[in-house]
C-alpha cells in the first residue's frame, strides 16, 4: 500500500532522522521525499510503500503519532489514493 507522510512543524535538527528511524524499524520503504522550509516552518512529504504483511497501517500510524508527540511536530499518514483521486480526473 502506498501512503503519504506529511510532516509540518518548527524547523529543528533531526526531523528526518526521527521519522525515517520509525520507518526503517517498521520496514517501510521510502520511495520519494521532498522538503522545504517556509517561514521557519519545516514541511516534508514522503511517499512510502507499506508491506501490509509485515506492518499494519494502524501500528505505523501509532508509532508516527508517538514520534510527533516526542518531537513536537504534526505528522500525518494518509493513503496516497486520496490525493490522486482529488486532483486527477
Amino acid at each position, binding site marked *: 500500500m502506498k501512503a503519504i507522510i506529511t510532516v509540518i512543524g518548527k524547523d529543528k535538527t533531526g526531523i528526518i532522522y526521527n521519522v525515517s528511524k520509525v520507518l526503517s524499524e517498521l520496514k517501510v520503504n521510502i520511495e520519494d521525499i*521532498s522538503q522545504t522550509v517556509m517561514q521557519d516552518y519545516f514541511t516534508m512529504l514522503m511517499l512510502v510503500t507499506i508491506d501490509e504483511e509485515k506492518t499494519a497501517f494502524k501500528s505505523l500510524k501509532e508509532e508516527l503519532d508517538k514520534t510527533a508527540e516526542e518531537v513536537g511536530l504534526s505528522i500525518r499518514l494518509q493513503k496516497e*489514493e486520496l490525493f490522486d483521486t482529488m486532483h486527477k480526473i
Partner: protein
Amino acid sequence: MIYKDVLDTIKMLEVENLDIRTTTLGISLLDCFDSDYKKATKKIYDKITTLAKDLVKTADTVADEYGIPIVNKRISVTPIALACANNVDEWIEYAKALDNAAKEVGVDIIGGYSALVQKGCTKSDESFLESIPYALTETTNMCSSVNLGSTKSGINFNAVKKMGPLIKKAAYLSRDDNSFGCAKFVVFANAVEDNPFMAGAFHGVGEAEKVINVGVSGPGVVKTALEGMKGATVDEIAETIKRTAFKITRAGSLIGHEVSKRLDVPFGILDLSLAPTPAIGDSVAEILEVMGLERCGAHGSTAALAMLTDAVKKGGIMASSHVGGLSGAFIPVSEDNRMIAAVEDGCLKFDKLEAMTSVCSVGLDMIAIPWDTPEDTISAMIADEAAIGVINNKTTAVRVVPVYGKKVGDKVDWGGLFGSAPIMEVNSFSSGDFIQRGGRIPAPVHSFKN
C-alpha cells in the same frame, strides 16, 4: 508525487474544515413489518443492530487511513408510517425501537420515522402523524419527517393544516430543552429517497435492501478558494467553485466507496451539499460575503446562492457517477455562524430566506421563531415552501422551531452541530382562514408530462 496537490489537500483538512459530513447506511425494513407491532419492533431492532453493527467501526477506520474525518455515522430506514399500529402508543414503540437500535450500534442519528402523504393520508398515517411530537420527545437520536407535496401530485393541504399544531406540540413537549424536538423534524415537498442528511433522511421504498449514502461538506474550502479572487468576474468565480466542488466530491466518493466495499453494502449516492457547521470558517453565508455581499441577506444574495448551488452541482456531477440526495447548498440559520450574524445585524429576514430557498438545495432550515407564532402561520410557512418546491420541481423543506417562552430578540442555544439561533420575526398577519380550508392543491400543469 505532486507537492502542491498534497499540501493543497492538507490545507483543506487542517485549516478549512474539509470533512465527510455523514456516512448513512440505508436499511429496508419492509420485511420487518407485521400486523403485531411487538413482533415488528423486535424484528426492526434486530435487523438494524445486525446490519449496522460494524458501521461506526468501519467508517472510523477508513477515516483514519485516509486522514479525512467522517463527522457523523447515521442510519436511515423505510418510512415507519408504512408499518402497522393501532394507536399512538403503538407507534411510539416503533420510535423507541429505532432509537434503541441507533444507540446500540453507536450511530449519531437514525432517520425514517417518516410518512409520505403527498396525495392523502391513510387512517394509519393519521395516527402516525399524531404520534410524531411524542415520539420526538421520548427518543434522543431519532429524526422524523413528513412529505406532503410533490410536483406529480400537488400539495396535501389537509396535511399542511395538521403540521402547525404538530410542530407547536413537539415544541411544547420539549419545552425544557428549548423546544429541541422540532429540530429533529422536517416537512418536505418532493422528498428524495436517498438523502443522507438529517433530519430528513429515510430509505425510500424503491431502494435496495441496504445501501451506503455519503454526504460531503466543505463550505470553508470553497470560501478560501474564492478569497484570492478579488476583482474576478462572476463566471471566473463559478469556475473556481466548480473545480473546488470537484475535489471535495472526489474525496467523498472515495471514502463512500471504501466504506461500502468494506461493509459489503452497495454504494448508493453521494450528496454534494455544502453543509455548514457553527464552527468559524465553515459557513455558506461567508461564501456569499466573500463574493462581495456585505452580509448574507443583502440584495443579490439569491443570485449569489443560485450561482453557488449550480456550480457545486456541476463540479460534483463530473466527480461522481452517482450524485443524488439533495445536492446543493444548505442554509440552516442556527448551524451557520455568519447566517446568525446576518440575522442579528438585521440584514437577513424571514422573507429573504424564503426567496433564497427557491435556489438552494433545501429550504427554511433551523429557524427559531417566537413561541406566540400561531399554528396556522406555521402551516402557512410550510404551504409557501411546498409551493416553491412543487412548482419549481425541486425539493423544499421546513424545519422551524417555535421556541417555548421565547420572543423576537431572544436567543436559543442547542449546542453541537445544531448551533444557536436568534428568534426571527414572523409576519404577524393571519393566514388562518386560508389554511383551515384544507383539501389538496392540484398538481401543477407541468406535472403532466406522460
